[in-house]
């Protein structure tokens, strides 16, 4: 039985139960957060690194969490920022343009051992990697996590209207890519 988030936060703030509460938070949210990151960075090892860094930041910052939003909203926000930071660092390391980074992510999709160009699901993954970073985040949160726009606006600190527009554009781009490929 999963413990309520409020109770987890209370336990985290007690020295004798801090580590146990942190472990419970990881076990409760690790899968959702992992897949959110993985869809951004594609590669498992990269996703693992980002997830580790993300939870380190949670450990350091959870004590000061003001609870003005849901815990998982706050976790999603950190995961999104860490993923985008990782992609920014990839850009700087390779000293290439953004489009080349996107090509790099597409190459990682193609390099997956299970990749099948004839399957629509894999074409969808390739299409997603063509999107700009922000659109990719919005699309993934809406399409895979089915996150309401209201909640998404708290995660991304963007208006609902802008998110809806971004999602609609993303869907159209993906559809066009799949039709042309």
């Amino acid at each position, binding site marked *: 039985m999963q413990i309520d988030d409020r109770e987890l936060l209370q336990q985290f703030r007690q020295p004798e139960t801090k580590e146990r509460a*942190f472990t419970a938070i*990881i076990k409760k949210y*690790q*899968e959702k957060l*992992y*897949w959110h990151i*993985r*869809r951004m960075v*594609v590669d*498992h090892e990269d996703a*693992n690194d980002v*997830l*580790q*860094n993300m*939870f*380190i*930041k949670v*450990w*350091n*910052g959870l004590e000061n969490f003001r609870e003005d939003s849901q815990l998982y909203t706050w976790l999603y926000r*950190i995961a999104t*920022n*860490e993923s*985008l*930071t990782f992609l*920014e660092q990839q850009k700087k390391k390779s000293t290439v343009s953004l489009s080349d980074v996107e090509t790099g992510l597409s190459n990682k999709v193609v390099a*997956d*051992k*299970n*990749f099948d160009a004839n*399957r*629509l*699901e*894999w074409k*969808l*993954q390739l299409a997603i990697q063509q999107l700009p*970073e*922000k659109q990719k*985040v919005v699309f993934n949160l*809406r*399409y*895979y996590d*089915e996150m309401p726009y209201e909640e998404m606006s708290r995660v*991304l600190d*963007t208006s609902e209207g802008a998110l809806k527009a971004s999602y*609609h554009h993303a*869907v*159209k781009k*993906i*559809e066009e890519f*799949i*039709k042309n490929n």
Partner: protein
Amino acid sequence: MADNINIFDDELKELGANSLINASRNNLYFLPDDFFINLPSNVIRQIWLNSVPKINPYFIPAGYFENLSEVVFDKIAVNSNKLISSQDLYSVPAGYFNNLAENILENIKAKNNSVQQELEELSPLLSKIPKTNVYTIPAEYFESFIAAPKQEVQPAKIISIKRKPHRWIAYAAAACIAALMFGGGYYYMQDNINNSSTSTAQNPVVDVKVKQAIAQLSDAEIDNYLNNDSSEVYTPQNDVEDINIKSLLENMSDEEIDNYLRENSDPGENTKGI
């Protein structure tokens, strides 16, 4: 006592009540035990009770008894109307509570289906693609996931998802600065090299002395010297070059020297950065 009874018997005879003369005169009525013994104290107690003023110490609201009957009738009316009034005011659809749980679940599904409906409106093609997870993870990844050792890190920098100015502006500025520095350093070095090449022409006295010294040497001595010792050749020109190079290096920055070395080094030569 016997005389008194006779008197009364005579009286009864005169009255013709002969049956009463023979009736038992015993007291047939019951009397509690100790009645007469307790009688005095009982009488005194009663006398005392009668002497206590009959004042009611309890308080009641004003008009209590005047309104009591109305209050009682109101309560009777309320109790008799309780079951009837709720049924009259509100009505509940038939089977409402029986279907309530099912209705709530349907509403929840409807909210979730709004994402699917939205997708169907935007892109029927995309809505038909199964949301299969195509990526794989190592076996027991989540079971064995352990966060890295907890390190104290700086607070996460939140990257604003807003458009940033293009980087080419920064690259162009850096390239201009580098070109200015290299050009200035190269020009300065060229200037000093040109000056050093004319140094001998500016020292004719030194040149004459060398020629005189060489003229005094025999051919064998010159040959012997050239074959055996070519390590150090002292010439005033070298001194001048050394001095110029030293002063040049003092006035040049490390970056200018590095750029000059890169420009003038042969391919493959290992030029160490300064």
